[in-house]
């Protein structure tokens, strides 16, 4: 993980000329001392692009999970805390979103909004939202009846204050675990979208898009398509391990 972060943030050092330094005379050159991982179809250093792509992946992963978790927590907390029709309506909406398997919802949303950084984050965020909502609702339900919450209610504290002060601190552990695991699947979703041509705009070197472009060179210049795949794998692996570790640390009872 640390290596990955270092790699991504060192991007300007690895490729000081930036991610879009083209040289048509140097197209599709194999890995060499000058270009450690070779060059792509426009003669750009793959190493440099992977590093910048790492920044992008991390950013998109984090932001989209933040979106998904933010909305999910809000929805879950409201539903769990108030119960009744609020619960019914909100969880009904969540059910609807959950009926879309996997990536399909994200594809539809990006198709509607158009490709691009922000839209991808929104789409991938919404994809992850229902899981957070469900988790938080369940947690809130179990915490709500505890004495300190009822005590706060009896003292006439405002609902928002109770939720923020008394409930959230007690349910954050599983949410953090879920978030770290969800970053992994968010990065995979973003890669899938880019692979389908629904990702960011060039010249942002997002990894899924690099694989998409690299696949026609698999027989002639394998490095264009193989390294981005490895980069995705390592990153996702990193977040999965992080999630596992956090789970062991914070909440040994929780299981995938």
């Amino acid at each position, binding site marked *: 993980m640390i290596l990955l972060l270092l790699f991504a943030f060192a991007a300007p050092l690895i490729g000081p000329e930036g991610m*879009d330094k083209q040289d048509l005379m140097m197209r599709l050159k194999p890995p060499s001392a000058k270009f450690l991982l070779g060059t792509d179809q426009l003669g750009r250093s793959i190493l440099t692009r992977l590093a910048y792509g790492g920044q992008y992946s991390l950013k998109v992963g984090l932001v989209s999970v933040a979106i998904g978790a933010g909305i999910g927590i809000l929805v879950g907390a409201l539903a769990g805390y108030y119960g009744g029709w609020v619960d019914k309506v909100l969880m009904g909406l969540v059910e609807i979103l959950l009926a879309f398997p996997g990536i399909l919802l994200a594809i539809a949303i990006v198709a509607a909004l158009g490709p691009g950084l922000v839209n991808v984050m929104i789409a991938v965020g919404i994809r992850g939202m229902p899981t957070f909502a469900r988790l938080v609702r369940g947690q809130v339900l179990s915490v709500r009846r505890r004495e300190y919450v009822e005590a706060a209610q009896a003292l006439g504290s405002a609902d928002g204050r109770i939720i923020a002060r008394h409930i959230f601190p007690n349910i954050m552990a599983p949410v953090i675990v879920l978030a770290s695991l969800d970053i992994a699947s968010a990065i995979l979703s973003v890669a899938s979208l880019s692979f389908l*041509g629904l990702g960011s705009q*060039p010249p942002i070197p997002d990894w899924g898009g690099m694989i998409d472009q690299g696949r026609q060179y698999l027989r*002639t210049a394998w490095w264009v398509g193989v390294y981005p795949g490895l980069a995705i794998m390592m990153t996702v692996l990193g977040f999965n391990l992080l999630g596992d570790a956090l789970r062991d640390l914070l909440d040994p009872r929780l299981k995938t």
Partner: protein
Amino acid sequence: MLLKRLGAGVLALVFVAGCSGGGSSGTADNGGGGKSGPVAQDVVIANVTDIVQFDPLDIQDAPSSLVAGQVMEQLVDRDKDGKAKPGLAERWTTSPDGLTWTFELRKNVKFHDGSDFNADVVKWHYDRVLYDKAAPARFRKQWSDIIKEVKVVDPYKVDILLKAPNAAFLDLVVTTNGGFIWSKASFEKLGAKQAALQPVGTGPFKFKEWVPGQKVILEANKDYWGEKSKLNTLVFRPIPESNTQVIELETGGAHLITKLGQEDVTRLKQNKEVKVETVPAYRVRFLEINASRPPFTDLKVRQAINYALDTKAMVTSLLGDLATPSESALMPVASWAHPQAGATTAYKPDPNRARALLAEAGWQLEGGKLMKDGKPFKFTLYSPNGRYFMDKEIAEVVKNQLTQLGMQVDLKVMEWAPYTDLTAKGDFDICFLGWNQSTNEPSIFLDPLVKTGGRGNYAKFSDKELDGWLDAAVATTDQAKRLELYGKAVNRVAENAWYVPLYNESKVAATRVELKGYTHTAAGDSYDTLYLGGKDQ
């Protein structure tokens, strides 16, 4: 080396590498491995997507058109240079005033359902386009503007009367998809919807079966009026990815593929089991500059962009054999009206000239950025993704080269549907576009793209003098006069500089060596001469 399956019943994954002397015996598709004796004449062709439907008036996609062209025929066919040759009409004449086209039909031609091909069917077909409100309307307006009436003279003679003389009549009507003539009997029996799924034509192949998403199977028409195909079946498989097409070709899963990148073309040329051919197609690719939007209202700015881009270098390095750098933005290189090198105002890459022109137009470099009246030179460049060869990559290079001049270029790569929407409305600064036709008639390129109100003139540029030349060129059949007019027109387009020529796309085909009798042409492909032979080249 081809891998051949040993008898069935053996567990999966048991294979024996065997050099198949007689070529690939079918593919994984028909599971017909293990045969010996003469080569099974079953040819598999990779199509880019699955077919959609076959109503000639509603065929909009190349894959359906390709398959339709094997099953159905037009009155007039095209030879490999794109010249008209007899099809279902044995000969045709034009009246001196240019208003009556008389087609003498081939006799003793039967549709695959056994019904006769004759003048009644031809009239029915054309009338369906012109008058049948239930029929797809794709061609109606265009054809109604040209055709006055279709008349049956005798059972094997048809007159088509025009509203005005039109040198491009064959190109605009007869040899389009809408010109495919299918069986009236079957149409009436099956109804329009069902007929569109099992087309009945007169062609060298009969439609047998369509397995959606998997294959379309045609079989040789044993009663064909022309030379009969030696094939047993002709199968079209939808394989969207070039990567997959190449693997299928090399492993014997397809005999002919048409979608492959430059690197694979170069590599496959070394492969003794495969032949690769390219031919310049009637497909032009260009950047369209929206001359109605500042800063592109200024001719000097448009010219500067033309000078700034080294499109030749982009095209040769990124596309190699797959494209020809173009002298003219809009005229296909294979057209008789394509200008000779140096005969027109072509822009040679010259960054200094570009800078000078920008300076003349008032744009000054300030801190690496082009500025005028305190505003930066900023615009959006639009490109589709994968619609044209290397479109996105070329757009990336264009952005890169223009950025080096100090312009701020925002590149937007879009999906095709919203892209056509946006470009057709003229809602762009600069966009990457293309124009495809099935013949090389100049007017079907220039008229829609540059005439005032032309349906492809998205930026709505208008040059009345140019319009006049183009009208005159269609109204005459005097070839020398037409050539002169189109020469002037092409030159004017370059002077106005609202198009940047990129390249002329080539049609590429890679075939297995055992596939014989294939002629690769710029016009539509016909497969009636194909057969499978030995592995000698």
